[in-house]
């Protein structure tokens, strides 16, 4: 584990697309006038003939991607999460999800860590929206290593994938030998008192929380749930069996995201307290991304508090 490297997952996304484009000649990348920010601009530089800017027209972009996919292309379509999942929801649902087309939605700038742009750009609803689409795979990588792996896995997967990337540089937590499999959660630390299930940039903060808990004599298991759909149910089941209490952590609304997915499953198949760390049904605001994470309780301290409560709630 190296704490020295700090890279935003969107940068890893851009680099991975370029890498992928070298071998996958069928790959096409679309963007809606945000290629500098989403980092698809790197692909544009490398393969200008396979990059198309549709302009500020996200709905149009999703349907063009669908049309390209019907003809055998693997298409990555990128914008900010707000516009990819939000503005174009219905196009994604009807023209990509329903016909189960091979379109990968590269959504960057998810969550409050977007920072200064403020609430209009801080999408904390995208996972909830995408989860409701049958057959949609949702990947939320925790660091640059995982982001790269997720892009490769998405390209290999037959069908629609929603990839969620962040703007903020995050610490690398995985090493080069890291192996990524869609739908297969990664246990980062074993434990017996409580399980912390995190996704995206909250994975790093959750590892921190586990250390703080350890200092207080609480032994927490830590799981990186990089795939929110399909959820690794076995991992949740085992977590409940082994620890009897769960805390989820995500940079997303507590409504409809990872916490909801885990709780929905647990209530039916493995009842146990599931406490959520996430954005508490409020809009974001302007400020430095890292500060906002703290302001909205997306930090180790809050995870620690919730972990203790979850343990108290155990029978």
């Amino acid at each position, binding site marked *: 584990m190296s704490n020295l490297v700090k890279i935003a997952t969107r940068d890893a996304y851009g680099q991975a697309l370029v890498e992928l484009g070298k071998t996958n000649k069928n790959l096409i990348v679309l963007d809606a006038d945000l290629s500098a920010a989403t980092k698809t601009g790197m692909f544009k530089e490398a393969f200008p003939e396979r990059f198309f800017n549709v302009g500020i027209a996200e*709905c149009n972009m999703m349907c063009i991607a669908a*049309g390209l996919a019907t003809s055998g292309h693997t298409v990555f379509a990128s914008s900010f999460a707000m516009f990819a999942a939000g503005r174009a929801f219905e196009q994604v649902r009807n023209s990509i999800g329903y016909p189960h087309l091979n379109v990968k939605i590269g959504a960057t700038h998810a969550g409050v860590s977007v920072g200064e742009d403020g609430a209009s750009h801080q999408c904390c609803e995208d996972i909830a929206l995408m989860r409701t689409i049958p057959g949609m795979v949702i990947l939320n990588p925790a660091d640059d290593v995982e982001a790269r792996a997720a892009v490769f896995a998405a390209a290999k997967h037959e069908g629609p994938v929603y990839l969620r990337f962040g703007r903020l540089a995050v610490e690398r937590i995985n090493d080069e030998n890291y192996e990524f499999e869609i739908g297969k959660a990664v246990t980062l630390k074993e434990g017996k008192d409580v399980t912390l299930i995190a996704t995206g940039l909250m994975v790093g903060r959750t590892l921190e929380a586990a250390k703080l808990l350890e200092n207080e004599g609480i032994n927490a298991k830590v799981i990186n749930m990089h795939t929110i759909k399909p959820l690794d149910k076995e991992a949740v089941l085992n977590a409940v069996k082994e620890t009897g209490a769960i805390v989820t952590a995500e940079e997303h609304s507590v409504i409809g995201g990872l916490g909801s997915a885990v709780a929905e499953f647990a209530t039916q198949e493995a009842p146990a307290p599931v406490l959520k760390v996430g954005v508490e049904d409020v809009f974001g605001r302007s400020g430095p991304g890292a500060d906002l994470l703290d302001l909205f309780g997306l930090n180790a301290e809050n995870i620690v508090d919730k972990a203790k409560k979850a343990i108290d709630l155990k029978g």
Partner: protein
Amino acid sequence: MDIEERRNLQIMACKVRLGILEAVYNAKSGHPGGSLSVADIITYLYFNQMKVDPENPKWEERDRLVLSKGHVAPALYSVLAHKGFFEVELLKSLRKVDSILQGHPSMHLTPGVDMSTGSLGQGLSVAAGMALAAKLKGASYKTYAILGDGEIQEGQIWEAAMFAGAKGLDSLIAVLDNNDLQIDGSLEEVNSPYPIAEKFVAFGWHLIEIDAHDFDQIDSAFKAAANNTDKPTLILAKSVKGKGVSFMEDNYKWHGTAPNAEQYEQAVAEVRDVLSSLEVENE
């Protein structure tokens, strides 16, 4: 087009209309008005213009058709059935549980359907994506998109029009079924999209205006469109909603209503009359 070719198309269009009526009548729901207004053009496309193979519906080199106004699925299904993609008998199963004929087109359930549609405003973008793929591959297939005239009130149509014009997608041919009616009334009453021709021209499209029920005009329009090599083409086809059934013609109330038994019989009798006189002429 010679007399016989035209008559054969007219005969097939009657059969297609009978299929539409049968499907919607048996389903007790569906959209006869817009199906009948576009029946001649879709018949022409599948029987005279498009490269398709009913034995191999996913053939790579085939021409594609996106029924952007997906509610007129009965028109597409009837043409596909008569072309041999599936049994004509199946038209009766429209909208029934377990039928391959969904209320709106599904590309995975129905052989010959190239794209799932139903939500208005998306099909032109999808067709632009298909045309872009053809361009990238150097493939020779054409992509057709069938749009409703009310449908072009959707903003995404103009996003797609801009994209296709800007990228010079010359293999894209859109047909606008200009029947002047939508659900709540006439286009003018609801929210006029006119002038339509000028808008598409301004977005960098070729424009051809025709009578949607005149096979000679249809034929020359599509032949001209096929030869365009610089821009996408819009065929603005002036049509009559409900065409071929007197009491449905030009009446917005027949947009999404199925005929009752009596109305169905009358409708079928009217189309059969035309069909038999055409068949007599043919002998």
